[in-house]
C-alpha cells in the first residue's frame, strides 16, 4: 500500500484535491499507531500527516503551543516539560495495549480525542484544543479557533474534528492550551476493596474540596501487573493529588481522614505515584495478545462496576479510571455482546480499541446512532467530504 506523506499543508491539500477529483478513498493516519482501533478502512492509498512535523509556536507565559499534526506527542511533551508545563489531558500512550511500535503524533491524539486519568478533573484533549488547521475532503484548507484561550467565534469545528478520526478533515496543525505541571504528586491507595466500594471511595474523593486529579480502580489481577502495587496482593483504589508539595501533604492528609470509612489509605510518594498513574494512563495492566478484543466504555461513574462485572462474567479483565466512569476491558471476542449490552444498559457509550480485523469489520465499533443522529452524521460528513474519500467506514459502515 503506497503512503503519501506531503511535506507541507499546500501539498496535503493538493493530494486530497486530486484524490477528490479521482473519487479515490484515502486511509488517513499520522504514524499509524492507532491502526488497530475502530473499523478497518478500505483504501488503496494511505495519506499520512507525519511529515507536517515541528512546533511552530510555544509561548509558555500564554499557555499555548502550536505544532504540525505530524509532530510526535513525545516531542511536544518534551518541549513543554522543559518549561515546567504539561499537556492538560494527560494523553495515553496505548502502544503496548494496541500492540504497536509506532510513535503517536499530536494530530493522532487530537483526531482520536484520547485523554488520560486527568480528564476526569481537567477535561479532555478536545477541551484544550484552541485551534486547528485542516484540509477537508475537497482539498480546501479550513481553520477554526485560533491561538487564544477563549474563542466563541463561529461554529466550533475544533471539537467536531477532535474525535472525528480523520473522517471529516485531515489535521495539518493544532494549537493546544498547556498548563504548569504540578510541583508534586501524591496518591492514596486503598487496598482490597471490591469495585462498588472502590467507586464509592473514588466518588467521595472526587466530591471532596481537595482537587483530586485522578481516581482509578485496579482489580487484583490488574494491580498485580503494576510493579508498585503487586505487593498488595489485592485490588487497588487510587486517588491522586497534584499540587505544590505542601498542598499535596495537606490534602492527602485530609483525604485520608475523609476516606477512612472505606478503609486504610496508604500514601505513595511522588516517584511511585508517577509510575502507577503511567500504568493506569497507558492501560498496560490489560495488555494482551492480538486475538483479544479491547474496549473502552464510558458510563456514569456509579455504573462502572456493573459494566466491569459483566465483562468479567463474560471472561474479560478490566480496570476503571475517571472515578469509575471509564471502563477499560480486555476480553475474548465472544464477550462482545455482553460488553456492548452492559454499556448500553448503563446509558453509556463504547469504542472498540483493538480486535482481529474480521471482527472489527462486522462489530459496531461505536454505538449505532438513533436515526436522527445517523442522518446528521451522514449530512455533516457530506458537508466536509462530499465524496466520502477520507477514512471511509472508520466509525460507521458506509459513512
Amino acid at each position, binding site marked *: 500500500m503506497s503512503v503519501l506523506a506531503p511535506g507541507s499543508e499546500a501539498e496535503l491539500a493538493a493530494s486530497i484535491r486530486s484524490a477528490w477529483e479521482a473519487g479515490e478513498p484515502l486511509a488517513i493516519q499520522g504514524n499509524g499507531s492507532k491502526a488497530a482501533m475502530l473499523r478497518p478502512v478500505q483504501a488503496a492509498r494511505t495519506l499520512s500527516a507525519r511529515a507536517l512535523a515541528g512546533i511552530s509556536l510555544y509561548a509558555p507565559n500564554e499557555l499555548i503551543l502550536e505544532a504540525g499534526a505530524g509532530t510526535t506527542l513525545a516531542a511536544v511533551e518534551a518541549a513543554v516539560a522543559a518549561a515546567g508545563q504539561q499537556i492538560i489531558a494527560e494523553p495515553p500512550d496505548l502502544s503496548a495495549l494496541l500492540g504497536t511500535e509506532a510513535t503517536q503524533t499530536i494530530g493522532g491524539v487530537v483526531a482520536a480525542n484520547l485523554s488520560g486519568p486527568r480528564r476526569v478533573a481537567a477535561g*479532555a484533549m478536545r477541551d484544550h484544543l484552541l485551534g486547528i488547521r485542516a484540509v477537508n475532503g475537497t482539498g480546501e484548507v479550513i481553520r477554526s479557533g485560533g491561538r487564544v484561550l477563549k474563542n466563541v467565534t463561529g461554529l466550533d469545528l475544533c471539537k467536531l474534528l477532535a474525535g472525528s478520526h480523520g473522517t471529516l478533515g485531515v489535521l495539518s496543525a493544532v494549537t493546544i492550551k498547556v498548563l504548569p505541571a504540578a510541583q508534586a504528586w501524591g496518591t492514596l491507595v486503598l487496598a482490597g476493596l471490591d469495585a462498588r466500594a472502590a467507586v464509592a471511595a473514588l466518588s467521595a474523593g472526587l466530591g471532596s474540596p481537595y482537587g483530586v486529579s485522578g481516581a482509578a480502580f485496579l482489580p487484583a489481577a490488574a494491580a498485580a501487573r503494576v510493579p508498585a502495587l503487586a505487593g498488595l496482593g489485592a485490588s487497588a483504589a487510587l486517588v491522586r493529588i497534584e499540587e505544590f508539595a505542601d498542598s499535596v501533604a495537606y490534602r492527602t492528609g485530609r483525604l485520608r481522614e475523609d476516606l477512612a470509612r472505606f478503609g486504610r489509605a496508604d500514601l505513595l510518594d511522588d516517584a511511585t505515584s508517577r509510575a502507577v498513574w503511567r500504568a493506569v494512563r497507558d492501560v498496560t495492566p490489560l495488555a494482551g495478545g492480538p486475538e483479544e478484543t479491547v474496549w473502552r466504555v464510558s458510563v456514569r461513574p456509579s455504573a462502572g462496576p456493573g459494566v466491569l462485572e459483566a465483562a468479567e462474567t463474560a471472561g474479560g479483565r478490566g480496570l476503571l479510571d475517571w472515578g469509575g466512569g471509564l471502563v477499560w476491558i480486555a476480553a475474548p471476542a465472544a464477550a462482545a455482546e455482553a460488553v456492548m449490552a452492559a454499556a448500553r444498559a448503563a446509558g453509556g457509550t463504547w469504542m472498540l480499541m483493538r480486535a482481529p480485523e474480521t471482527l472489527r469489520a462486522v462489530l459496531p465499533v461505536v454505538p449505532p446512532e438513533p436515526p436522527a443522529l445517523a442522518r446528521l452524521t451522514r449530512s455533516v460528513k457530506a458537508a466536509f467530504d462530499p465524496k466520502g474519500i477520507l477514512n471511509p467506514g472508520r466509525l460507521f459502515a458506509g459513512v
Partner: protein
Amino acid sequence: MIALPEPKAEVLARRDDIVAGLRSLLPADAVIAEAERLRPYETDGLTAYRQVPLAVVLPSTTEEVAAVMAFCHREGIRVVPRGAGTSLSGGALPLADAVVVGLMRLNGILSVDYADRVAVVQAGVTNIGITQRVQEEGFFYAPDPSSQLACMIGGNVNMNSGGAHCLKYGVTANNLLGLRIVTVEGETVEIGGAHLDAAGYDWLGLLTGSEGQLAIVTEVTVRILRSPEGARAMLAGFRANEVAGACVDAIISSGIIPVALEFMDRPAIHACEAFAHAGYPLDAEALLIIEVEGSVEEQDRLLGQIRTICERFDPVSLRVAQTAEESAAIWKGRKGAFGAVGRISPDYLCMDGTIPTSRLPEVLGRIGAMSREYGLQVANIFHAGDGNLHPLIMFDANDPVSMHKAEEFGADILKLCVEVGGCLTGEHGVGVEKRDLMDVQFTATELDQQRRIKSAFDPGWLLNPHKVFPLAAAAA
C-alpha cells in the same frame, strides 16, 4: 446599523392562521400575539436593535417545543430561540416574520446526583439557580457569566458562556455532559448523557456555542463540582498597563494559575470606585484582582507568593484580603463594572474580543488612540489570564451620530483583536452584532464550510437565520 433580512411577505400575510395554528398546539397562555404583549420580546441585551416578532410561544415541555418546531418547519416559518434575553450580541433579537420560542417556562431541575457529580436541568433554569440548588451540599456549577442571576443555562449552552473563573474551570463547553435537543423538523434527540466523551462525532461540542443555528436545546446535563475549601482575593495597582501585563506574565510563569486574574484600566478603576467604593487605588493606571483557592493556609501561601511577585513590579497599591468580607469588597467594584459605566454614560457597548495576552499593552494603547480619534470614552476590563478583553464604549443612543461612531469604534477594536492574533468574540457570541465582521476572521472557504454544517442541521435556514453568518453568505 446592521441590516436585518427582509421578512417573508407570504408569512406575514398568514399571521392570523399561524397564531391559530400555534394556539392549537399549546395552552392558551403560552401563545402571545398581541402587540403590547410582544413588546418585551423585541430586544435582548443588545438594546440598540429592536424588532417585534410575529408571535411568541412559551412552551413548558420538550414535547411542546417539538410540536411548535414541527409546525413551523411544515409552514416554513423562521424560529428565534430565547432564554432570558441577556445576550449582549443580539443572539435573541427577533425577526418580523419569526416565532420566538421562549424557554423560560422549562425551568425545572430534573435530577441532581452528587455521587456522579451531574445535574439534569431544563433550558430555562438560571445559571445561578443550578449553584443555588447544589450549594447546600458544597457543590457548584462552575461557569459564572456576569449575567448569572438572570441568564439561563439554555442560553449559556448556545453562546458557550464564560465568566471570571474560567481560567481554572473552563467555559460552558467544558462543563457539559449531555443535551436534549429538538431539531428544526421537530424531532427530539438525546446527545451524550451522564458519561464523559462521545464515541461518534462530538455533537455536544458542535452544538455548544452554535448560537441557536442548529437546534433548540431543552435540557442540559451539567457537571457539578465540589467547591474548594475557600477562596480569597488580592488587589494590586500598577503605574502602567505594560507593568501590570508583565506582572501577569510573571505570575503565570511562576507556575501559579490563579482561579481568577482580572485587569482594569484607569477609566474602569475610576468608574467602579465612584460606584462601589471598593477602595481601588485612583492613582493606579492598571489594577489586577487576583483570586486563589484552597485552605486558609494554602491561600496565605499562594497570596504570599503572588504578593512577592507583584512587589517586583513597583506597585502603587497592594492589598491582600484577610477575610471573605474583604475579598467580597475587592470583587464588588469589578462585579459592578457595567452598572458603574452605566452611571457615567447614558449608553455603552460592551465589546468582547480576545487577544494574545502578551499584546495587551499595545492593544490598550491603540484603543486609547481610537478613543481620542472617535471622541468616545472607553473603559477596559480584561480577563487577563485568558486574554478576553471587554472594552466598554460609552455613547448616547439618542444621538444617531454617537451611536454610529460607537459601532464603528467597536468594529475597529475587534478588527484589531483579529490583527494581533486574537478573535472577534471570547464569550458573548457573534449574534447580530459581529455578524458582518466574520469575514475579518474567516476566509470565504471557511465560512462556506460552517454554512454547510448549518445547512446539514437546518436545510431551510429557519433557525435564527439572521445571526452569525453575513447575510449575503447566508442567502447564498
